[in-house]
Structures are given as structure tokens and as C-alpha cells.
């Protein structure tokens, strides 16, 4: 019994290992499938892959990887909070763009010392993101509207609303040129660079957000209640965990993290919000990253870095005759294969654990 209980004490760690191993396995399967696709289209897969590695592993490109991973970590974390409660927040896209505009604009109306100014804008962004998410939360608990439907529709509403706000109130043409933006933020509102011009401190903020996610969801009482409500809603409700309050809180947290997604650009590059200065689609990419990372903090960071790595190479690939779209294809196939391989191996692992335990308890002698 002794050695058995010791071995089983690590069953949690073992299941993490299975998850990690199967993820890496899934990535390899994805690369093989992509190689097949490249062959079919008449390209040399080995050349494409070596080109990706060659460009990506360059020092400058590694910084680019971290830079590109930053918003992905944030949006994936935002999505993951919802997933933990079986809520699918597809609205990160609308939430972060709305937050970006509001935060950039609000930031120009205050004058504060540097660190406080930055913190103020981050806070406004979080509140604005949560505010936009609160519409979906409200619809869900008051009218029972499925958040998938409402957040998708709110994305479109957000885009139009932002455009209207921007064109009518916040647009600043004093700068001239084609790249219209909100009023440029004061120097005090600029996120310091970690590597001048390459990577700003939002990278650390993103890591911090993932760490906070880890503590809140996996270590706190609220997180336990949230996960329980996701794992078995009936059991959670029966044990007195209020389902509606959980749904509202999860969506608000998700929205507030989503609010930060565009901050690397608002505070670190454009110093303003602008239709062309603020990248879109990061909310949707976050869904893929969260899926790939299995909503686990370490997984999210790993998946964001992988996506960031692939993204960082895509421009160079085009120049060397490898279609840059291959990067998007690889990303998509990786998500699919990893999710499938993960799920299959977790099931196998669970089945084996159950069988082993049953066998062990049968051989041990118990007084009944």
C-alpha cells in the first residue's frame, strides 16, 4: 500500500505531464500534416520549416516573439476565465477595442506623474472592458441569453459604436497625415521599454495577469467556487454556490483582462487609439491560445509564445518565397491536433487510472 499511495500522490503531477507530453505530440502531428499540405501545393516543407526556425531563432526575432505573445497572453487569459465556468466569451475582441478607445481618450484628460498615469490608464481599460462585458453578463442572468450569441453580436456593436465615438468625438486631426488617432498621450503615460523600441513593460504586466489568474482561479476560494460551477454546475448549486453571481463575476473578470489586450500598443507604440494603430483580431487569436494552453497558466504562456514565434516569422517567410499564410495554417492545425490529442490521451490516462485503482483496491484486503 505504501508505495502505491506514494505513487498516486503524484497522480495530479502525472496528469499534467500527460497534458504536456500530448501537447508536444500534437504539435509534431500538426507539423507533419502541414508538411503534407506544403507538398501538395508544391513547396518544400523542409525548406519552409528550416526557414521558419532560421528566421525565428534570431535574437531580434525572439524579442518580436515576446512582443507578439504579450497581447495573446492577455486575451487568452480573458477567454480562459470564461472557459473555467463553461462560458465562452467570444467578445474579447469587442471588449478590448472598446477599452482601448476609452482608455486612450481618458488618458489624455488627466495629468498625473508617470507611473500613476500609466496605472490610471490600465485601470480605465480594465473597467471599460468589464463594462462592455457586463452587457453580456446582464443579458445572461436577467434574460438567459447565451453569452456566445450576445458576445458575438456585441463585437459588431462595439466596432460600430467605437467608430461612431471615434469619428464624432475623439478623433484628433491636429497631427495631420493619414494615420488618424485619438490625441497623443503625454510622455508620463508611456509604458517604459524593457528593450528600447523592441519590447515594452506590458510584457511583464501580461505575465503578472497570468500569475493573478493562476492565484485567483486555482488557489482562491472564489476560484474554487468558479471551477466547481464549471465542472459540475448542479453539484455547485446544490452546495450553495450561487450560479448567477459566478457567471457575472467571471464575465466581468474576463472583460477586465480583455481590456488590457491593446495596451501594449496604446501605451507603448501609438500612444493613442487609432483604427490603423490598434491591431484587431487579437480577441479571436486569444481563443485559440486558450484552447491550446488548456486554460492553464503555464499552458497559456507556452501557447502564446508559440503563436508569437510563428507570427514573428511570417513577414520574412514571404520574402524568401515561402507563403506566409503557412504560419496561420500551422497555427490552426496545431490548435486542432493538440486539442484532439490532448483529449484522447487524457481519456486514456483517466481510464487507466481508474482501472489501476480498482485493481489495487481489489488485491488489497479490506474488512467489509
Amino acid at each position, binding site marked *: *500500500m505504501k508505495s502505491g499511495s506514494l505513487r498516486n500522490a503524484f497522480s495530479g503531477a502525472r496528469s499534467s505531464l500527460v497534458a504536456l507530453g500530448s501537447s508536444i505530440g500534437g504539435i509534431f502531428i500538426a507539423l507533419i500534416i502541414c508538411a503534407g499540405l506544403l507538398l501538395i501545393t508544391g513547396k518544400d516543407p523542409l525548406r519552409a520549416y528550416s526557414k521558419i526556425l532560421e528566421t525565428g531563432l534570431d535574437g531580434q526575432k525572439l524579442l518580436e516573439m515576446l512582443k507578439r505573445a504579450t497581447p495573446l497572453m492577455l486575451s487568452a487569459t480573458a477567454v480562459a476565465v470564461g472557459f473555467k465556468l463553461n462560458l465562452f466569451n467570444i467578445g474579447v475582441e469587442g471588449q478590448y477595442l472598446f477599452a482601448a478607445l476609452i482608455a486612450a481618450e481618458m488618458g489624455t484628460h488627466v495629468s498625473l506623474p508617470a507611473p500613476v498615469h500609466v496605472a490610471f490608464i490600465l485601470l480605465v481599460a480594465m473597467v471599460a472592458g468589464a463594462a462592455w462585458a457586463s452587457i453580456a453578463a446582464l443579458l445572461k442572468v436577467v434574460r438567459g441569453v447565451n453569452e456566445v450569441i450576445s458576445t458575438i453580436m456585441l463585437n459588431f456593436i462595439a466596432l460600430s459604436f467605437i467608430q461612431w465615438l471615434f469619428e464624432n468625438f475623439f478623433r484628433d486631426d491636429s497631427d495631420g497625415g493619414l494615420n488618424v488617432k485619438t490625441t497623443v498621450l503625454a510622455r508620463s503615460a508611456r509604458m517604459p521599454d524593457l528593450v528600447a523600441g523592441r519590447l515594452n513593460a506590458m510584457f511583464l504586466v501580461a505575465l503578472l495577469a497570468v500569475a493573478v489568474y493562476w492565484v485567483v482561479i486555482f488557489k482562491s*476560494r472564489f476560484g474554487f467556487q468558479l471551477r466547481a460551477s464549471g*465542472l459540475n454546475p448542479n453539484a455547485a448549486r*446544490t452546495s*450553495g454556490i450561487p450560479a448567477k453571481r459566478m457567471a457575472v463575476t467571471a464575465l466581468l473578470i474576463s472583460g477586465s483582462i480583455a481590456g488590457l489586450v491593446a495596451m501594449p500598443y496604446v501605451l507603448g507604440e501609438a500612444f493613442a487609439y487609432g483604427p490603423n494603430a490598434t491591431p484587431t483580431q487579437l480577441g479571436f487569436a486569444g481563443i485559440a491560445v486558450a484552447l491550446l494552453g488548456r486554460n492553464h497558466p503555464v499552458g497559456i504562456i507556452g501557447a502564446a509564445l508559440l503563436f508569437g514565434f510563428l507570427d514573428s516569422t511570417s513577414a520574412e517567410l514571404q520574402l524568401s518565397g515561402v507563403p506566409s499564410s503557412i504560419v496561420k495554417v500551422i497555427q490552426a492545425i496545431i490548435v486542432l491536433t493538440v486539442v484532439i490529442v490532448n483529449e484522447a490521451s487524457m481519456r486514456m490516462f*483517466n481510464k487507466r*487510472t481508474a482501472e489501476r485503482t480498482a485493481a*489495487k483496491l481489489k488485491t488489497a484486503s479490506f474488512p467489509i
Partner: protein
Amino acid sequence: MARPDGRFRRLLLLGTNIDLDLKVSELGVGQRQRVEILKVLYRGANILILDEPTAVLVPQEVDELFINLRQLVTQGATVLFISHKLDEVLAVSDRITVMRHGTTVATVVPSEVHRLTLAELMVGSDLPAPTARVIAIGKNERLVVRDLTLIVEGKKSPVQNVSFAVYEGEIVGIAGVEGNGQFELCAAILGLEKSTGVVEVCGRDMTHSSTRERLDAGIAYIPFDRHREGLMLNSSLWENALLGREERFSHALLINRSAAKQACREIIERFDVMTPSDTVPAFVLSGGNQQKLVVGRSLSVGPSVLIAAHPTRGIDVGAQAAIWDEIRIARDNGMAVLLVSADLEEILALSDRILIIFDGRISAELAPEDADPQILGTFMTGGRVSLLTMVKPAVGVSAAQDL
């Protein structure tokens, strides 16, 4: 819409007169059921299996259904009619097969069997004698339910005007065939479903309180279905043991993992849960051991009121005996226990008082020593009993007077 062809027209002769252009949503429950039957007949079914077909029908509709079934049978159809209502079974069947605990007990012909015999067959004649209890029942009402009625829209309420009280140190058994409102009654007491009426826990009116507040006031719940309402099967045992107790095992908003694990190991030890460790996921345990964990979790909070719904369903005898002992010990320590079970052996083994639930109402109240299989069976299947000397009707229910 295509007009009904000849076959359909013949079917319509079955005493039904449904306007074929109506939408099903516009029909009454009885008519909907007829549509359902028509549908299977239209597809050419010769054997009809009807599972509790009268549950949603009013008496006139039941009569009509029976006439229809008779007609179908004369036309050569075979009907398998599943019901726990004795009068219906006796009225409609050519042959009756009684099932109990998943096996057939007897097959009889209605004309040759008395309904009391049938009732006895249903519940079993070899029920154990109720066990004598040592400690007297206390005087304090721990759980009071008054006029509890579930609020449901558009349907008959599954729980209607249920009233009872459970005293400290008392086990009140609620016996009934499954699907007579037991589940909904528990849900209403816990505040999981909206209801009218009053629920008091330890003298405090909890009618408008949330589930968590009711649990905090002293209720513990062993749910009907440990998989559906009790456990997170993919989570570790210690996390499962923590569910509902997370406020006790957290400090500064964070879960105190080592204390929670320690508490789980205490449950494992005391309730003899056979498991390699407290970190294995719940799905690896056998049903009996899962149930022991659920029971242990409920009892470990030191509740004043325990609602135990099918506490030993689907588990082995050893685990059953252990759980029964735990419930008795809890009772002896002054806990008020509401035991909901379809297993009469369990009801008789534990209860100090037996309430019978039928069709969402408490139809009778018995002392365990008065409960013989015939009486129990008759009440549980909606019949009336003429044994006035033995039966005290429950308050507000005219069970015995209707003779």
C-alpha cells in the same frame, strides 16, 4: 401540409378528434399525448410501450386513453403499460407483471388478484421489523415545512401543499415511488427551486433565503444522484470533500490546501472510504466509496438537519450498512433527519415516522410499527386504505376518511 392519407384516417377513428392543422404547442397535454401515440402507430408500430402515460393526464383523459388502448388491442396491437398506479393497472391490463429492484416478482391476472395482494407484491412482503431506538425524540422542531408548493409555469406543480416537521433526534422517512415529487421537495427545501409556503430551519424562517444561507443555518444534503449533484468526477477527492465547505477551509480568501486535505483524510478514515489517496480523481472510486465520501462530507459540517435522499442507492451492502449506522449515530446525537427513499427496507430500517408522498402530496403518515407492505404499497400507489385503526391521516389530507 400533406393531407392525412387513408391509414392516418383509420387511426383517427380511435376516438380522437384533433384538428390536424393545429400546432402541437396549441394542444393540451392529453391531446399531445394522443399525437405522440398516433405518431408511433402511423409509423406502423405494433407494440406500444407506455411509460407512466397517465402522469400528466386528468381523470377524464385517463379514461379516454384507456378506451383508445382497448380499441388498439382489439385491432391486434400489443400494449406494454408501465405504471405505479394500481387502479390503472387493474383497470387496463390483461396481465400484470410486478417488478421490484430490477427483477420481476410475479405475473398475475387482474381478475384473480386482490389489489392489496398486488400492493404487497410491489413493496415486498419480507420487510424487516423496524429497529428499536434508544434515545427519545427531542421536543424542538429542527425543520418545519408548511404548505410548500413548487412554482412551475403551465404544468401541474410536482409538490403541492406539503407540510411536516422534523424534531431533533428524529428520522422522518418520506416513502414513495420515484417521480412523485420527492426530488422537487428536497430542491424546494434547499431553495434550489422557487416555491410558496414556509421553510424553517432550527426555528429560523428561511423561506426567502438562498441555498447557501439555508445550508449555513444547519441543513446538510445528501443528494439523490451523487454523479449529477454530488461530485466533480474529474476533480480530486480532497476538492470534492471541500465542495460546500470551502468557507471553512479558506484563509484570507485563499483555500487552505493542507487543512482541506487533512479534512478529506478525516472523512476517508472515519467513513472508511477505500481509496489509494486523497488526490485521486473521484471517478476512480466505486459507487459505494463515492457515496461514503458524499455522506461524510455532509455529516462532517455538523448539521442540525440532514436531508438524505436515497443515501444508499446503487451501493453494496457493506457500504449501505455503514451509511445507515452513520445516520443512526447522527440521529442519536440530536440531528433531525429527513430520509427520502424509494427503498422501503431503508425507510423501515431507519425511520421514526413515515410520511408517504404520492403525486406531489403527503398522502399519509404512519408509525413504522404500523407500516405493513400492504398499507405502504397502497398509499404509495395512490390507493386508499380501510384500516382506520392503524393509519393516522396526515394533517389536511383526507386519506383515511374517504372510505
